[in-house]
């Protein structure tokens, strides 16, 4: 380690200490900035201290990263990880240079498990050679900010090309990950819970993206689809098909809004969160764990003993009402939430809040690609809408056949809105900044503690 890099790290650590321990503010961007300004190669100076795993993709990065962290810790690894708010280069640099890196209990190298924004993969991978890239999924997401899915994947590939030795561990159910010209070894995980007798071969529904075969650009067919364009796909014009899976979901037993039970490679597992998409997150963590020689039993224990990390779908109580808050930001994510609502056995109401600030995506047209019509198959009893773009979401749900809606233009009336719902169970789906405003209201009314 050079004097310059030592100085860079020391400065970053004191800035972090000042921010975090003295001023009680989060944030790792400023320490990252400081360190890089003193030594632009500061990351190179510490890369031998740990193995780097990059987790990237559109949906599920945060929970997947948290799960991988717990799984590797259960296997005796010392793990460094970042917060979802700092998944770009400066935040990540800050995280790495301010972390105390202790030796692993199992005698192996510590592991840095980093959630990385798709557009920042190359910046990280060019500074530190990763040992593994974990690719969750790529869906269209806030096109005004991120662009099209193949452009996003190209950005990730640009990062992969910096580390030809790294293993690419990818979701094999997503056809896009079979594309790309790079020499890295690819290993796949996916779902294989449907017996061949139950296959229903056919094309995906019309509003599904990314369904062309990489070989001859024909429309792919599927033996089964789990959600969106994920599933067991094959070409009807040539030999192209889903690659062999190294890690697979072998059974799906019970899907409820609060938990799921399933098996991966015949190990029965349970996670304390609903939604099939969250089983993908668990599968990804399982696959990474096994790649690092963590046993299936240790992974099972890691899932069971860390129930609190499945907290993203937040459950709170408002005067006897059982309220679940879910973030929505793109069609696939919203459809997954609606699929989760299909597993709700009780009557419920839904409050949908739409904002269109930069962090939400300023283009609201995606709400027309989410299949709100499917809510008619659930036990939904009432719908209310609100947020800055309440008119958009109001008309969307009206045209989906929910004509009778309470409308809340002003989120300061949100507690009142919840209380006015006719059922005990209430789901609130909200875009990012609407969710922050909602939390602020619930916080000042005393229904949730602390900040966010």
């Amino acid at each position, binding site marked *: 380690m050079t004097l310059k890099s030592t100085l860079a790290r020391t400065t970053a650590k004191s800035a972090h200490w000042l921010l975090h321990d003295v001023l009680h503010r989060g944030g790792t961007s400023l320490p990252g900035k400081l360190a890089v300004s003193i030594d632009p190669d500061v990351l190179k100076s510490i890369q031998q201290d740990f193995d780097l795993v990059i987790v990237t993709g559109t949906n599920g990065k945060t929970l997947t990263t948290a799960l991988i962290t717990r799984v590797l810790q259960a296997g005796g690894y010392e793990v460094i990880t970042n917060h979802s708010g700092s998944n770009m280069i400066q935040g990540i640099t800050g995280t790495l240079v301010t972390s105390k890196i202790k030796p692993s209990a199992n005698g192996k190298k510590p592991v840095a498990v980093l959630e990385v924004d798709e557009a920042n993969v190359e910046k990280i991978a060019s500074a530190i050679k990763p040992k593994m890239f974990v690719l969750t999924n790529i869906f269209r997401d806030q096109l005004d900010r991120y662009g099209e899915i193949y452009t996003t994947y190209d950005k990730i590939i640009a990062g992969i090309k910096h580390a030809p030795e790294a293993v690419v561990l990818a979701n094999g159910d997503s056809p896009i990950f079979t594309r790309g010209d790079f020499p890295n070894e690819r290993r796949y995980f996916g779902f294989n819970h449907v017996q061949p007798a139950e296959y229903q071969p056919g094309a995906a529904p*019309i509003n*599904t993206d990314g369904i*062309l075969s990489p070989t001859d650009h024909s429309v792919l067919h599927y033996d089964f689809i789990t959600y969106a364009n994920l599933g067991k796909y094959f070409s009807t014009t040539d030999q192209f098909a889903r690659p062999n899976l190294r890690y697979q979901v072998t059974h799906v037993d019970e899907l409820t809004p609060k938990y799921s039970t399933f098996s991966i490679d015949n190990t029965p597992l349970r996670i304390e969160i609903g939604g099939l998409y969250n089983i993908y997150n668990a599968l990804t963590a399982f696959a990474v764990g096994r790649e690092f020689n963590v046993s299936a039993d240790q992974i099972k224990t890691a899932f069971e003993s860390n129930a609190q990390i499945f907290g993203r779908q937040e459950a709170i109580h408002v005067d006897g009402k059982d309220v679940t808050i879910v973030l929505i930001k793109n069609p696939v994510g919203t459809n997954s939430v609606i699929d989760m609502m299909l597993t709700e056995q009780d009557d419920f109401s839904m409050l949908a809040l739409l904002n269109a600030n930069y962090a939400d995506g300023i*283009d609201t047209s*995606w709400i*027309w690609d989410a299949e709100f019509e499917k809510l008619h198959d659930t036990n939904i009893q009432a719908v209310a809408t609100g947020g800055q773009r309440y008119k958009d979401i109001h008309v969307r749900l009206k*045209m989906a056949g929910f004509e009778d809606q309470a409308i809340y233009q002003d989120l300061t009336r949100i507690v009142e809105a919840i209380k006015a719902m006719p059922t005990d169970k209430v789901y609130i789906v909200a875009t990012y900044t609407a969710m922050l405003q909602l939390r602020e209201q619930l916080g000042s009314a005393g229904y949730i503690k602390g900040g966010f």
Partner: protein
Amino acid sequence: MATYDISVAHLYGDLMNTYGDYGNIIALKYYATKIGVTMNYHLVSLGDRFDSSAFDFVLFGGGQDYEETIVAEDLKQKATDLKQYIEHDGPLLAVCGGFQLLGHYMVMADGKKVDGIGVMDHFTTNMYDKSLTVLSGKRLTGNIVIKNNDNGEEYHGFENHQGRTFLGQGERALGTVISGNGNNGMDHSEGVIYKNVYGSYFHGPIFTRNGNLAKRVLATTLQRKYPDIDWQSKLNTVPTESF
């Protein structure tokens, strides 16, 4: 009581569907249902024949660059039938990529030139074209408001495109830009009207946010199929969604 229905063709609905275009069908169906008209939906995609006599309304949406090149290739075998449909006053809404491909050609951001089918006279160049005098090299992204020159109606939407479209013979703009950029950021035109074809860059989707336009196109569609009924009066009884 007689029953009325319309058949809708969604051209490449499995590939050209990137920015909420399907919302246009949802909106059309919503207004149709309000006046007792049933809608039948048909996907017409790669390898399928487009039968010009089988449909009362056609939606041709926008897609990602990759899908758009595949569609452009397949579209050639549908060109004659589409031309016939359009020249026989068939109602059609083309958004973004669909709008571009009905013209002579489009140039993608990377400079690749993709042939359209030229059933309409516009062409689309890319944001790096040297002839651009405004906003060269920038995507045209943001909220947009336009005013229809024939009837003064205002339409609201969101645009997000790199392509710059210039209208040709016999084509007039869907509207004049009040705020935003429109077809090319230079001549204040947005979209196109040619016979009963409407083209636009609006991702809004345009029919959901502009019920006035949706109802007008629906009335045209129904009048063409069932000329003895006053559809406009029926539609006037339905509240117009506009935001």
